[in-house]
């Protein structure tokens, strides 16, 4: 397998200078934020709904073993198969073995971040299987040979013009910028594939324990075809994505759709509880549910358990000024944006430089405020930063800088002296109180910004003077 590296700060610069990316990001995140705002305003008390959703997620995580066992048991009783995959390798092997045993040649896929997480497509293609993504966004990036740059809008980084060029090249479309024509082109190409496919692989939005069912929401109808047309359906579900009953599901679906796309409800909501039964006209002959752990059970019970409440709506990405600036690819992991800066170090700690990801945040908190289940994302980022330091991962200059800072801030005499030096230095370097150049590493500040000169007299000194003057 190729390495799935994080070269993430290397990509920042190019992302910031990619005009198409900047245009696409600007358009898309603005639209998402606007849609979410109106969808949220349309609910009487969205805050209360968020609180309920959070309580539901927390409750489910607290009883994960029990709920998963119930889900698996009911699915098996209806003739479905359940694979408990400890990691990505186990999940990939199960699906490859299944495909080979059943003589599968062509696989259609609907959107699944879990499958991205385990780099499934690559593994399937490696053994000679033909894999086609059928979500329009995923299809576009598959044609482009790229990875998703957003949890729910994988091709958010692509402009209409770039999509046109891809379709002209790969699908022989007559050049046009007309979006209905472009979608029709993709639809025609994909229809053939649905009919050919022997296996459909989908993700799972939620498992519902008491119903023994999985739920998939989508807007294009491709997941319905993926899960019903081929003779085998494989669903991949992160083990944390479960709720107990349909009431809980109702709350989660409401906050999911409103937070993700600003819809009241997604266009299609499919509830799937097993293979086709004898009296049913449609559906697959076989249904397999892959329950993917992949380090999740290590996270439960620890300081980052809250991250598993995530329902993958993407609202934190849209709200994040860092994501808005650089897009998803710069993060270098499968999951991007604020939640990605938490999930990637937790799920893929082996990636080089992954400890730097939690620093891709100004800690402004917009993510936490957009999150439908109120994950304290900045607090978790801060914890990850602290853990990295504990493990000896920091910038070379940091320990000395922190040591000096600590000495100065805990010793008034040193503090006073340090301040005087800084004051002298910055006033010598500056003019009219503005400093245009600072020595490294602070020159990173002065590249595009001035820095203020330190004051000749500190507040403490002026305050003492004022007191002595008796004013």
């Amino acid at each position, binding site marked *: 397998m190729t390495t799935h590296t994080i070269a993430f700060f290397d990509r*920042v*610069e190019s992302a*910031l200078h990619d005009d198409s990316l900047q245009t696409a990001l600007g358009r898309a995140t603005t639209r998402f934020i606007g849609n979410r705002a109106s969808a949220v305003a349309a609910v009487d008390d969205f805050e209360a709904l968020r609180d309920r959703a959070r309580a539901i997620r927390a409750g489910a995580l607290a009883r994960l073993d029990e709920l998963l066992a119930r889900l698996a048991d009911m699915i098996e009783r209806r003739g479905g198969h359940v694979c408990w995959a400890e990691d990505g390798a186990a999940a990939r092997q199960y699906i490859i073995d299944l495909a080979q045993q059943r003589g599968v040649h062509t696989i259609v896929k609907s959107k699944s971040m879990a499958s991205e997480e385990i780099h499934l497509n690559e593994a399937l293609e490696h053994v000679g299987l033909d894999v086609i993504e059928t979500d329009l966004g995923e299809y576009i990036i598959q044609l482009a040979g790229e990875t998703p740059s957003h949890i729910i809008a994988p091709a958010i980084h692509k402009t209409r013009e770039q999509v046109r060029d891809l379709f002209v090249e790969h699908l022989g479309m007559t050049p046009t910028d007309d979006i209905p024509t472009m979608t029709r082109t993709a639809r025609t190409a994909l229809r053939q594939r649905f009919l050919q496919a022997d296996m459909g692989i989908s993700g799972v939005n939620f498992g519902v324990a008491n119903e023994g069912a999985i739920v998939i929401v989508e807007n294009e109808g491709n997941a319905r075809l993926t899960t019903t047309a081929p003779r085998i359906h494989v669903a991949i579900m992160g083990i944390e994505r479960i709720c107990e009953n349909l009431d809980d599901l109702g709350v989660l679906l409401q906050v999911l759709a409103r937070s993700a796309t600003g819809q009241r409800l997604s266009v299609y909501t499919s509830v799937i509880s097993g293979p086709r039964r004898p009296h049913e006209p449609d559906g697959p002959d076989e249904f397999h549910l892959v329950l993917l752990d992949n380090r999740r059970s290590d996270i439960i019970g620890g300081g980052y358990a809250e991250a598993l409440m995530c329902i993958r709506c993407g609202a934190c990405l849209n709200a994040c*000024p*860092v994501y808005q*600036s*650089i897009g998803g690819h710069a993060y270098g992991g499968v999951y991007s944006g604020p939640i990605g800066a938490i999930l990637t170090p937790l799920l893929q700690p082996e990636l080089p430089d992954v400890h730097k990801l939690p*620093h*891709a*945040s*100004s*800690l*402004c*908190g*917009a993510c*936490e*405020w957009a999150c439908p289940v109120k994950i304290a994302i900045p607090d978790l980022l*801060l914890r*990850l*930063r*602290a*853990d*990295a*330091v504990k493990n000896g991962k*920091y*910038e070379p200059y*940091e*320990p000395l800088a*922190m040591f000096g*800072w*600590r000495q*100065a*801030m*805990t010793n*008034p005499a040193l*503090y006073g002296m340090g*301040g005087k030096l800084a*004051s002298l230095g910055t006033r010598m370097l500056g003019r009219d109180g*503005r400093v*245009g150049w600072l020595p490294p*590493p*602070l020159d*990173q*500040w002065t*590249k*595009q*910004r*001035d*820095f*203020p*000169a*330190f*004051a000749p*007299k*500190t*507040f*403490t*000194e*002026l*305050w003492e003077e004022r007191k002595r003057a008796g004013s």
Partner: protein
Amino acid sequence: MRSRSLRLKQKGHVMTAQPRRRVALFVSCIVDQIYPAVGLATAELLERQGVEVTVPRGLTCCGQMAFNAGFRDDAYAVAGRTIEVLRHQGDVVLPSGSCGAMIRHLYHELFHGTRHAAAAKELAARTYELTEYLVDVLGVSDVGARFSGTIAFHDACHGMRYMGLGRQARVLLEHVAGATIVPLPGSDECCGFGGLFAVKQHQISEAMLHRKLAHIDQCGCDVLVTGDTSCMTQIAGGLSRAKSRVRARHIAEVLANRVER
């Protein structure tokens, strides 16, 4: 002035209804070293409301810089000392929502399970940001400020999200005689400061700053006002590099008439 509501007129004399309020002023390291005028303006604003202001000896920093960088031992040493210095000092007022949020929101995380845990909680309960103290505690909305010009207000993230600030500053600014308050588009979007983020991820920080500067340009204000000197440093640094005529000032300076037209 609304501050009269705190006093009772009795037999022709103005008498205070309660013992004189006393606060400990914690100006923050940035104000102490770089913007002492903000500290003096803050003290003046409080004193004009009849509040006795003390500055505890030896105060330096809330510890946020190291905490945000992940160096919790260093943050613990500095913040632990700050807790000690502020012990038995009564209400604490800061001209910063960011340092305020550090004490009110993040000290819990930093000191959880340590010997400072109880003191940190007790300190958090008596810590206020300046505009919050003026409006919510003292019940003031007009501090008698004057400014002839247009003002736009930038919501500093930490104060807005972790202390519920923004409303108080707008109330105070709306009562500044002669000033026109213009809405700043995206006033609740981060300016890109973020502590060491501004240096470590300077390209992203600059991109965020440039969006903020574009919004400031759009709104046509004379003065961009904010409640945190950290955002002010970032925004003022961008404005001066761009040779803009707009000035970035701390809200205490405007309210204490320290901003010349």
